[in-house]
């Protein structure tokens, strides 16, 4: 049996959801033979590959790079999971949504510092007007809220998906 091609993506988030995934601890060992991790902060791949079975996306969509990556993820994945509150609700990254990006950046990088009063431009992706939940920019197949989602919930989702079932999260997860 071929192994399921799994990817994880880290957009605008704190990586806590990835940490929660790692919190599966020894359960990871059981998963290892069943899955192939093809992309994500935990592996080396530079380019999001074609033909991914399930992609877990952590983080809100905050920059143009996030948006492009999200669209690539959708185009190349059969099943997309929004993992954690930032991907599901935009969460903490959305707390800047009432402030225009330019004003926001100036406040932080010009008014807010004592040296080097300059908004960084090179090599930094441009911010979108607002940070959005993942499903506002691409179709999302499953939402796993939580900040972070408990490892058990993530484990449950993975095992259900591997078993070819749609996980039913009603009552198992919460925002925050």
């Amino acid at each position, binding site marked *: 049996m071929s192994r399921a091609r799994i990817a994880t993506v880290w957009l605008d988030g704190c990586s806590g959801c990835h940490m929660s995934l790692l919190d599966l601890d020894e359960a990871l060992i059981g998963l290892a033979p069943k899955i192939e991790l093809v992309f994500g902060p935990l592996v080396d791949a530079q380019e999001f590959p074609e033909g991914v079975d399930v992609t877990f996306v952590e983080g809100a969509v905050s920059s143009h790079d996030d948006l492009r990556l999200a669209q690539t993820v959708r185009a190349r994945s059969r099943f997309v999971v*929004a993992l954690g*509150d930032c991907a*599901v*609700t*935009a*969460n*903490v990254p*959305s*707390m800047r*949504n*009432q402030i225009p990006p330019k004003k926001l950046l100036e406040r932080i990088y010009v008014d807010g510092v004592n040296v080097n009063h300059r908004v960084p431009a090179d090599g930094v992706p441009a911010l979108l007007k*607002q940070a*959005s*939940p993942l*499903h*506002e920019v691409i179709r*999302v197949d499953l*939402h*796993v*809220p939580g*900040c972070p989602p408990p490892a058990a919930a993530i484990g449950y989702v993975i095992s259900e998906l591997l078993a070819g079932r749609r996980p039913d*999260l*009603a*009552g198992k*997860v*919460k*925002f*925050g």
Partner: protein
Amino acid sequence: MPDRVSIRIDGELLHARLGQTILEAATAQGRFIPSLCHLKGLTPVGACRLCLVEVAGIGRLLPACTTPVQDGMAVTTRSDRLDRYRRMILELLFAERNHVCAVCVSNNHCELQALARRLGVTHVRFPYSFPKAGTDLSHRQFVLDQNRCILCTRCVRVCAEVEGAHVWDVAGRGIGSRLVCELNRAWADSRSCTGCGKCVQSCPTGALAMKGFAAEEMVKRTETITRLVEAKGVRA
């Protein structure tokens, strides 16, 4: 006994007192009907629409919190339609203001959050409004965070009906409605606020909170309001 009536809730035959609402009758029997604007002891207002139930023979949905029981009434508290509508209402609340649960003082002690979990809301299909909502930090002891307010008006009622001060009310209309202190004054400048904190204790979310609490630390004691009302007989 003329003051006792028989009603059916989800098929089960129950006895209730005449004058009770459907919600009271159901809760008395340990049944759960979701609601947010209702707080036992305060005048029910039927505003959140989460407690809507189906009553046989009546074409429209009725709020359990304001509809009195009638003998022979057959009530359905859960159905596919009610579940869908309730989830949608919760989603609308999440989309209306900025409910960032992760950093909220009421995280894990919030009625909105708990209901969402209980009713299986895993995301909000409606686009978030991300409004500029504002806070009032002027009071010595308390804070008002409009970002978390769901306009349930429990604070308005508890202050007017129990404390007798009527500090709070709702200004504006429609989506522009917002909680105001007196005639839109900073809380610290209120001349009628007694500082009793009943509004804070009755608030179902993190909209009203004590100062000095960090995320997850604010635990509300809504039952104290109910107890107070029942003990003092302020309201029947």
